[in-house]
C-alpha cells in the first residue's frame, strides 16, 4: 500500500531548488552565508552541479564517515563479536566502574 502511495504521489523536496547557471553569477557572500536551500545548477534542463553550504557538506561528510565506521565495525569479525558480547553484558547487568577495576588491579599487585 505504501509503495502504491509512494509511486502515485511525486515527492517534492522543498530544500532543493533547480536554477540556471546564471544564478551563480548573482550570488554574493551574503547570499552564500544565508543560503538555506541546496541549489542544483543546470543548463538547458541538464543538472551540472550542486551548490550547498559548507556546514551542510560537513554534515554529509560526518554522516558518511559514521556509516563507514558502522559498516567496518559490523563486518569485522573481532569487533562485531566484541560489540555483541558488550551489549549482552549491558543487558545482563555485567558492568563495573572503571575506578573499581583499577583499584582491584592495583590490589592484586
Amino acid at each position, binding site marked *: 500500500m505504501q509503495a502504491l502511495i509512494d509511486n502515485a504521489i511525486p515527492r517534492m523536496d522543498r530544500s532543493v531548488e533547480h536554477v540556471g547557471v546564471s544564478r551563480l553569477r548573482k550570488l554574493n557572500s551574503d547570499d552564500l552565508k544565508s543560503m538555506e536551500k541546496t541549489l542544483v545548477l543546470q543548463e538547458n534542463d541538464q543538472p551540472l552541479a550542486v551548490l550547498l553550504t559548507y556546514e551542510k557538506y560537513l554534515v554529509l561528510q*560526518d*554522516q*558518511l*564517515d*559514521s*556509516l*563507514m*565506521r*558502522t*559498516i*567496518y*565495525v559490523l*563486518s569485522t569479525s*573481532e*569487533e562485531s563479536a*566484541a*560489540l555483541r*558480547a*558488550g*551489549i549482552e*553484558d*549491558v543487558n545482563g547487568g*555485567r*558492568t*563495573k*566502574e*572503571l575506578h573499581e*577495576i583499577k583499584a582491584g*588491579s592495583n590490589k592484586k*599487585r
Partner: protein
Amino acid sequence: MGGQLQIQLTATAEAAYLRFSDEAENCTAKGDECNPQVKFFRALNDALTKDIPSDPFNRKMALSGSLSNIFRFSRENLRICYLGHGQQRRIIVLYICQSKAEESNSYATFAYMVMSGKFDAAFTSLGLKPPDRQGLFPSPSIN
C-alpha cells in the same frame, strides 16, 4: 556540560582491560618500559580518563542508524567502543581491542574492505560487478 562523567566497563571490556594491564605490567617488571604493550596500556588509560571524557558524545565518533548511541574511539592501534548516555553523563565501554592496522580514515578503511573482496557477494546480489582488483580505488559498476 556539568557533572563528572561516570565510566563503566562491561565484563568483556574489563577482561580486555585487565589483560592489557597484565601484559604491560609484565613488561614493566622486566624493565622493558619502552615495550609497545606498555605504550598501548598508557594510551588506553589516557583515552579512558582524558581523551574520551573531554568530548564523550562527539557525533564524529558515533555509529549510524539504530547504533547512533554507540561511539567508537580510535587512535593508532587502539579501539574503544562505548555506549553513551548524554543526559546521565555516563558511558559504558562495550569493548576494547588492539587493531593490527592503523586506520588512516574511514574512506581508506572502507576501500580496503571492498578491495579485500569482503563485499563481492553483496555486489553480485545487487546486480553490481565487483571492483577491479587491479585498480587503485574500488569502483563498482553496473553489469
